[in-house]
């Protein structure tokens, strides 16, 4: 068999069930996000005062809220924002964290000590409190949320990658790369990091769950996405006041959060199994 075909088979081959279901859920949400204008039956911010607090029916499958907005359409449109939160809220900490972890692990010594103390400082504060403090300083909004996420979230990736690099830099192929006259940066980022990355990628999937819940929590507290934009966290917050007379306002966006988080978890599990990493 040719090398290329064998390489391809390694990628397809046996796909663990969690990976398949997780990927399925994620693809489902991506389709919702992309196709929102077509799929959603109503405008997410159109207020139909005559149909306020309508329970689920054929006209409004998920019911309407206190302004008469269609919950189903709002849940679908929210997918765009929430997927963006999950993606951007993970990618910045991922990049900063892996770079910091690689440098700290590779050079060791004073560099490592400095990075580790910085990480200790960040970890010394409760996660959400630190997030809220940063957002309070920067002012509410999604941009602040991403910046806060990047400032706080990188530490997990840095510690994970650092531990791997510590092992990898002692490896034979690191020395072989050195014997070819390669520079430190080339060895670090072209040879060691790609070998350390798999664990971080798996972790990023489970981290996406936390980021998603954080984003919802921040929006719930009124510091993230601002109304009337549809976002699951805000919808849950808004529905809370009506929970005893109109359960559907908070329930359906809540279920959407649970389902997407579940999808990411399965994806992390399946990917870990497939690539031989335990998250």
């Amino acid at each position, binding site marked *: 068999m040719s090398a290329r075909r064998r390489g391809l088979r390694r990628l397809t081959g046996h796909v663990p069930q969690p990976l398949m279901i997780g990927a399925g859920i994620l693809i489902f949400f991506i389709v919702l996000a992309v196709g929102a204008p077509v799929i959603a039956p109503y405008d997410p911010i159109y207020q139909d005062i005559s149909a306020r607090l309508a329970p689920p029916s054929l006209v409004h499958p998920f019911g309407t809220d206190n302004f008469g907005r269609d919950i189903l359409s709002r849940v679908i449109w929210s997918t765009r924002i929430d997927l963006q939160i999950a993606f951007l809220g993970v990618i910045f900490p991922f990049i900063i964290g892996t770079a910091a972890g690689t440098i700290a692990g590779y050079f060791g010594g004073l560099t490592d000590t400095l990075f580790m103390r910085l990480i200790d400082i960040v970890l010394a504060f409760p996660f959400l409190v630190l997030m809220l403090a940063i957002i309070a300083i920067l002012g509410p909004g999604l941009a602040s949320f991403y910046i806060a996420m990047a400032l706080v979230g990188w530490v997990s990736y840095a510690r994970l990658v650092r531990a791997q690099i510590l092992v990898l830099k002692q490896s034979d192929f690191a020395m072989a790369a050195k014997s070819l006259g390669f520079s430190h940066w080339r060895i670090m980022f072209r040879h060691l990091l*790609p070998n350390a990355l798999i664990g971080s990628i798996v972790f990023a999937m489970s981290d996406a769950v936390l980021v998603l819940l954080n984003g919802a929590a921040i929006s719930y507290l009124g510091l993230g996405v601002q109304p009337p934009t549809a976002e699951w966290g805000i919808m849950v917050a808004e529905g809370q006041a009506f929970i005893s007379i109109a359960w559907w306002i908070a329930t359906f966006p809540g279920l959407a959060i649970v389902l997407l988080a579940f999808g990411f978890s399965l994806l992390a599990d399946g990917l870990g199994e497939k690539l031989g990493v335990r998250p």
Partner: protein
Amino acid sequence: MSTPLLKVDGLTVETKTETGTHRIVDGVSFELQKGEILGLVGESGSGKTMACRALLRLLPSSRLSIPKGSVRLDGKEVMDLPEDQFRAIRGKRIGMIFQNPASHLDPVMRIGDQIAESVRFHHGGSKRAAEERTIELLQQVGIPDPKERSRAFPHEFSGGMRQRAMIALALACDPDILIADEPTTALDVTVQAQILRLLKELRDARGLSIIFITHDLGVVAQLCDSICVLYGGRVCEHGPKERLLAAPRHPYTAGLMGCQPAIGATGERLRTIPGYPPTVDAMPTGCRFHPRCSNEVAECSRRQPPLEAYEPDHVAACYNPVGEAAALPAKESA
């Protein structure tokens, strides 16, 4: 004699442990001419690998240091070069291949990409040119269907193929000297013979000089032009292959040769050297081989024997050498 391509003089490597500072390589000296294949022979722990890693400043731990020693490349001292200038020597002047090619190749990078990276890093040029050069190199080291195989990952190669890829990787930088650290130990005999032939061809075709590290005298006899025998981190005998194998002076060399089984010899018990090589924290005084030596005299445990010349280019460090011929008077070389 012209200036040797590489001249190592008094190379010493020290290790710091709880029990103190120990010399695992102690004043090793040798020369390498252009196109010469030098065999560095010794048991495990004799310091042969450490000496070569020290030569490239590739010591695996920060507890190891090189307190003294000179390494001259084309007559120019390189040991005191700062690290960023010394890096230009690694790969480009002196390449290295290793015993276990499986762990010395980047597992997540395609073979061809690794070689092309090395080509471009040292010689620049376009991506296309590097790819063509890669295929040329793979062909040169005898990998069939190089274009297709360059797309493979290291784990998709067999042991012999990996060693060939490793050699291609080292050759990509076009070095003058190749240090081969037991490159055939992990391979089976037929593949071993192929790799040895390949190394010899490369020497003939490019005038490559090779330092071949091994514990296998049979391989040395096949491949090398000269032999340097190490014991306990010191050179005990050094000379051209024919003379050293025909008339070894140091009892250790003679003992090593006695350990080689002869094909066809039946019923005879294989000879061994009694005892074990010394460990770094318990080096014997005087000649480090004397506790295991059959030719031991009183002087051996008191003083370290100097290297004495028996022929102009054949030296050994022993007070009571094997064979009758006495040392050449006075003239000492090392």
